[in-house]
């Protein structure tokens, strides 16, 4: 009888670990966790071949809830730990889960360099614009004037744009979505399929310390007026009635009404996910400045991965110099015999 060679088909449930989930009820992390589990199953990933690495913060509990290999490391350092995992075994599918404090404050440096090196990591940054685990201080993405326990008179710091930073750091895949948005799985899926470092910012509701921070992107009556769903090669159209668009005027985006003053769809800005300058421009459009915020894939450009190039250097060195021989190594340099 022929052996059953068919691989078992895994479902989202198979990616759930046996651990009780300890996020606050109603936290946006639950929705993201469910979508990630589904995407892992859809992409046909294996549990043993997958590693989730995190730092510290609410989002960084994520690995405990995935029935894969997992490393809950230290604050801000997940990209560095994950880079080491990838160097040691490039065949593993490695995901990093981080937050706005973990990834942009204490770990900002590692994020930049993991992206710059194009290590084949999928980095999911849960942005809730607040420090949740330490109970409510402002974060690097909190808006100016934000009143928190550590900024009772309002934050005097400008927030950072995670996507602008990622693009400037030479990320080869940059995308954004929202914890409860219908497009989140598609965005995660595309990140998962990207060959290179993929950076995904996910707006996430902290219902305890920063509830409804992203309501403008989730409220079913208003959200379509506040976001633009990016599609490669398509014009930037948004609005509940899909009657508004973005046009470039003197190198700056402006909101226009389609049909008004003879404006046609062809006059609008068209999305090109291969164009990093456009991606940067899109990353600067913010709700606080009156713009709809783009969602989806901003930029993607496959490039050689760090761990593959490193492995290739090793292979090339072996090819040109032969497999390293200990005796030859010890006996290299000027040697001499003492009789």
């Amino acid at each position: 009888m022929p052996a059953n060679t068919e691989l078992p088909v895994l479902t989202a449930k198979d990616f759930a670990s046996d651990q009780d989930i300890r996020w606050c009820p109603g936290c946006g992390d639950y929705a993201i966790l469910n979508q990630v589990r589904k995407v892992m199953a859809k992409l046909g990933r294996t549990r043993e071949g997958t590693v989730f690495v995190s730092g510290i913060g609410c989002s960084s509990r994520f690995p405990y809830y995935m029935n894969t290999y997992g490393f809950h490391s230290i604050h801000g350092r997940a990209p560095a730990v994950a880079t080491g995992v990838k160097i040691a075994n490039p065949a593993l599918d490695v995901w990093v889960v981080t937050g706005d404090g973990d990834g942009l404050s204490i770990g900002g440096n590692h994020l930049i360099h993991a992206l710059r090196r194009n290590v084949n990591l999928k980095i999911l940054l849960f942005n809730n614009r607040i420090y949740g685990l330490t109970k409510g201080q402002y974060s690097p993405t909190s808006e100016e004037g934000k009143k928190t326990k550590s900024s009772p008179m309002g934050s005097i710091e400008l927030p950072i744009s995670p996507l602008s930073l990622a693009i400037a750091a030479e990320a080869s895949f940059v995308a954004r979505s929202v914890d409860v948005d219908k497009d989140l799985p598609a965005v995660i899926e595309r990140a998962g399929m990207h060959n290179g470092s993929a950076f995904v910012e996910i707006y996430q509701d902290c219902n305890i310390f920063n509830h409804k921070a992203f309501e403008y992107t989730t409220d079913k009556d208003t959200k379509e007026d506040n976001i633009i769903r990016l599609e490669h090669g398509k014009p930037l159209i948004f609005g509940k009635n899909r009657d508004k668009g973005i046009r470039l005027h003197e190198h700056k985006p402006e909101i226009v009404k389609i049909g008004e003053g003879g404006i046609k769809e062809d006059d609008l800005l068209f999305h090109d996910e291969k164009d990093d300058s456009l991606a940067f421009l899109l990353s600067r459009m913010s709700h606080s400045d009156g713009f709809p915020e783009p969602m989806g894939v901003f930029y993607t450009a496959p490039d050689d991965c760090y761990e593959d190039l490193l492995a290739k250097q090793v292979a090339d060195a072996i090819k040109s110099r032969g497999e390293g021989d200990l005796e030859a190594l010890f006996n290299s340099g000027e040697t001499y015999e003492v009789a």
Partner: protein
Amino acid sequence: MTSGVTKTAGNKPVKEMGSAVVFFAGDSGDGMQLAGTQFTDTSAIIGNDVATLPDFPAEIRAPAGTVAGVSGFQINFAASDIHTPGDRVNALIAMNPAAFKAHIEDVEVGGIVVVNDSEFDKINLRKAGYSEGYNPLDDEKYGQRFKIYRVPITRLNAESLATTGMGAKDIERCKNMWALGLIYWLYDRPLDTTVGYLNDYFGKKKKLPAVAEANVKALQAGFHFGETTEMFTARFHIARATITPGKYRKITGNEGLAMGLVAAAKLAAKQLVYCSYPITPASDILHSLAAMKNFGVKTMQAEDEIAAVCAAIGASFAGQIGVTGTSGPGLALKSEAINLAIMTELPLIVVNVQRGGPSTGLPTKTEQSDLLQAMYGRNGDSPIVIIAPQSPADCVEVAIEAVRIAIRHMIPVIILADGYIGNGAEPWRIPNETTHPDLFKPIEVKHATDPAKYQVYGRDENLARPWAVPGTPGLMHRIGGLEKQDITGNVSYDSANHQRMTDLRRLRVEKVADFIPAIEPHGDNSGDLLVLGWGGTYGSIVTAVENARQKGLRVSAAHLRYLNPMPKNLGELLSRFKKVLIPELNTGQLRLLIRGKFLVDAKGLNKVQGKPFLVEEIEHAIHKLLNNEWGDQDSITPSTETLGAEEAAG
């Protein structure tokens, strides 16, 4: 310098010496390190025992001609077994006034000083900080104490290369070889090793045959100058040392660490993943390993110290050998991540090539002041294994031993080398499986594979948890810095469990002591005084103790390779001596540990002057302690005053 019989060779008498210490000093752009290493190679190849101490400025090119910019290289070469670069310099080569000023006080009374007279002009004297109108070469106080030879090296070198057609600048770059040639003549050394090097390096590697030819010419011109001028009345010869027969090469500590790590990875059939951020004096390990990719070595130059250790931890988690290398300030930055490795019980090697601290401290100078940082410099109760090489040649074995322990016990190990060991060189008897069977024993790696038996924090007989590598079906698990429940590895805040896990982390380190050899004293098993040391002070301590024993004193030496855990018999050994002296290049860190652990009233000889101990400093402390001249102090510091004690004028 021990002198002996005089014979004649060529036109000059040759004095037979037991050993000599030569010091090359010049501006950091003068090529003194190259002159020093060439002198070392030649001396080793003709059969002397050698020990070296390079000394370079922290600035890459400090203002030319200043004392801050002086680069030096000290070589002790001998007809017998030696362990240190030597206390007093027998011959100083000073390429400019700053070099003279910086090192003249290191020269023994009656010693040789060869100065590059061409450079002792008004401007250079001023740059060296001498007062207007003063030239130390005209100062009788130096003339009376030293044999000063004023050789216009720059000019003679230029004259000897005048016909090469090279530019003045390129010609001047050869003057280190001219000086080296002269010193080769003075110490009766052949030129062929250096000629071979120059032809290989400049001629073949750099494809500059004209430069190779000019350097060889300069070298020969310097040698012939010694032979033909009447300036030097005698030259010296140091016979071959009686060294254990075998094949040798010269090795620096940093080279030794790199080779040891590569060897360990081979013995474990693993890939070495070395992640490091450039830092003096550890960067050479990264450089060496980056060039060894054909051994399957992967090197990562990380964005910072923290990333380096974290990537190494990630590599170990993924089943390879993760190693990070650094120096003191970098170890401080790595502390939190090292605790992650302690908590997650992963194999990890952290190499710390210590330098002068605190803070940025003295980047290019040696010190042993990170012992307590390695031991205790982390939050919580976080014991770690610490081992230290005693010499450059010892680094190979120590690196292999560190990997062996890390894998056998699933535990992080800190290697405490230091700048002196890292940059210093000595002959290394090249090991092979016949001469060193233990060294070449394969490193056994046991990866968990059976889901039915797997427990994340289950333990073997050495209290090591299983190493389950991502990619293994059925063993998916999560680890991290939160306290883990014993056996299951689930997150646990249970108080009894935390007590148990804290105790286990301590016991796991103590368990390593079952595998380490008993400490053997150098000398008798009991006596009036035990001189206990660790790390790079080995050579000075052993030499001082041998000297004291020859004078009939009941002194022994003992050296700790394993700082944590310590050998099981150490307490018993300490109890067999009336007094204990611990010389350290810090303010008493091992002494604090020994006193705390064994309640022994150990006395300290403590020095933080950026330099290794002189043998005479340790001998002096031994005599003081045994003659009851010590007083009631816990420790003494060698005087910073040098022989003669006069400030250089200016």
